[in-house]
């Protein structure tokens, strides 16, 4: 297939996705969305809106009732072992609780070496160490964290380790599920800056799930608002969040506490 005949398939395309559980909560109804290569999609919604189910569906972790999910133009329904293995590498998750996502019995050095050992067995230990060292710098850490266990690090440091681990395999997309909401506000800004830099410099696409609309507004060019398992509003973030058309989006925005800006005096 040559590029001049057909536009290249987007990284991710979801059409009419539905997931039905026996328990109603968490189900999805007729979800469609698209994420281009290197794009950034924000998913806004409250508990029970279906955010987590949607992420799990994208990773193939829940059975789909209707609709289709395409990665690079290929339907997940047709995936074989090779495609699943590739998906595990190109889609990397970053979760809310950095401590819970790291094995407490492993040192940071082992945590970071493991994905390379599994997915890039051809690399020797020297090449592995070089890659790890380079990534640590990019997430704002130094090699001093390598001999430590997760519990010896702060929440912000642990989240940087999680991001480094996710980035090691040069994924096409980072799926971030409330990646800063367990962190102090001062540390949130640090982690946000790391994600923003990786997104811009490496062209890694982002799927960013957050109840913090101001963070979505900063990080994502596209946004969808979920409620009760359905998309109530979708589009360019600046339109969705700065000029919301749906009553629920307006309510969500109105509920965000407003901290007046301080007067600048140096």
């Amino acid at each position, binding site marked *: 297939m040559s590029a001049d005949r057909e536009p290249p398939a987007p990284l991710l395309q979801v059409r009419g996705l539905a997931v039905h559980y026996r328990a109603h909560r968490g189900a999805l109804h007729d979800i469609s969305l698209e994420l281009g290569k290197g794009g950034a999609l924000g998913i806004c919604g409250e508990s029970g809106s279906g955010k987590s189910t949607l992420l799990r569906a994208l990773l193939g972790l829940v059975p789909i009732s209707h609709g289709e999910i395409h990665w690079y133009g290929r339907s997940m329904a047709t995936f074989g072992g090779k495609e699943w293995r590739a998906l595990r590498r190109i889609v990397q998750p970053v979760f809310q609780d950095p401590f819970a996502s790291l094995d407490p019995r492993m040192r940071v050095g082992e945590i970071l070496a493991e994905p390379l050992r599994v997915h890039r067995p051809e690399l020797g230990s020297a090449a592995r160490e070089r890659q790890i060292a380079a990534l640590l710098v990019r997430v704002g850490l130094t090699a001093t964290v390598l001999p430590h266990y997760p519990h010896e690090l702060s929440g912000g440091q642990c989240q940087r380790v999680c991001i480094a681990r996710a980035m090691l395999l040069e994924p096409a997309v980072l799926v971030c599920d409330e990646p800063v909401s367990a962190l102090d*506000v001062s540390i*949130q*800004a640090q982690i946000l800056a790391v994600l923003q830099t990786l997104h811009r410099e490496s062209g890694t696409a982002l799927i960013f799930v957050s*109840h913090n609309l101001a963070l979505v507004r900063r990080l994502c060019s596209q946004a969808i608002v979920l409620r009760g398992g359905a998309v109530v509003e979708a589009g360019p973030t600046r339109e969705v969040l700065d000029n919301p058309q749906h009553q629920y989006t307006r*309510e969500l925005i109105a*509920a965000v*506490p407003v*901290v007046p*800006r301080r007067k600048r005096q*140096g």
Partner: protein
Amino acid sequence: MSSIPAPVLELRDLTVQFASREGPLVAVAGVTLPVRPGECVGIVGESGAGKSQLLLAPFRLTASEAQVSGIAQLAGEDLLALDERALDRVRGAQVGFVFQDPMSSLTPHRTIGDQIIEVLEHHGRARGQAARERALALLHKVRIDEPVRRLGQYPHELSGGQRQRVLIAIAVACDPALLIADEPTTALDVTVQAEVLTLLAALRAERSLAIVLVSHDFGVVSRLADRIVVMYAGRVVEEGPAPAVIAAPRHPYTAALLDCIARMDDSPDAPLPPIPGQPPEPRALPAGCAFHPRCSRAQARCRSESPVLASDGQRAAACHFPLSI
């Protein structure tokens, strides 16, 4: 001129420390905090700043090894002199508590009604049918939907927001003069958070309830608090009327905290200025001002000399080089 009413809660030079192999760990270092009737004081700071220790240690709600010194009075009564039995009569009666995680604050195998009635009976406020009616009235008061049905339900049958309303009902069941709310909305969705804050404001207006609201979130605090106290590394670094502190902070830490909040009207191209580094460990406090390693205004004096909290009667800041007034 009317005199200032006596504080409901008076903490003076309060210190909370823990024994450790490397010597005492100071979680709270000499904090003075009066809370007046009907007032809402917001305590802001990062994890580990000592916010919760400051409010919970005087009521012996922290680890039993905590050594508390200084003065802690509730309505003139010396809390630090009370034995466990006497303190048990104070907690839940004269002061109510609401914590972050309503699920772990409720007993999973007992109904909502039983848990509210228990508090009323424990403090001798009502028994039997009268207690049941009081419990129902309390559920009405916290504006929970279907209050009659809730009485017979278990905590897991309720949503997070409903559980937090139940906790608030329990906290105000005995009509306390003071409510201590430690991150009461942190685990809730934004729309539910807004409802819970509205509820707290209504209860406060109705009963001239004093509230101490502990939160890492300036947004939450600014919705409710008259006065803001900013803590860093176990000390108060700034305090004053909430609008004044937010509009024109004097301590560089307060200013930095305010500047790194993402706002809905931000220009997305201007990066959020993060505060570099992280809060210090209590066992390894820097010399001088504890904030100096993270402070953009730090000078030689900040590295050697600890600043005192200087007050002009209205506002106070502990900084050698405060932002201009």
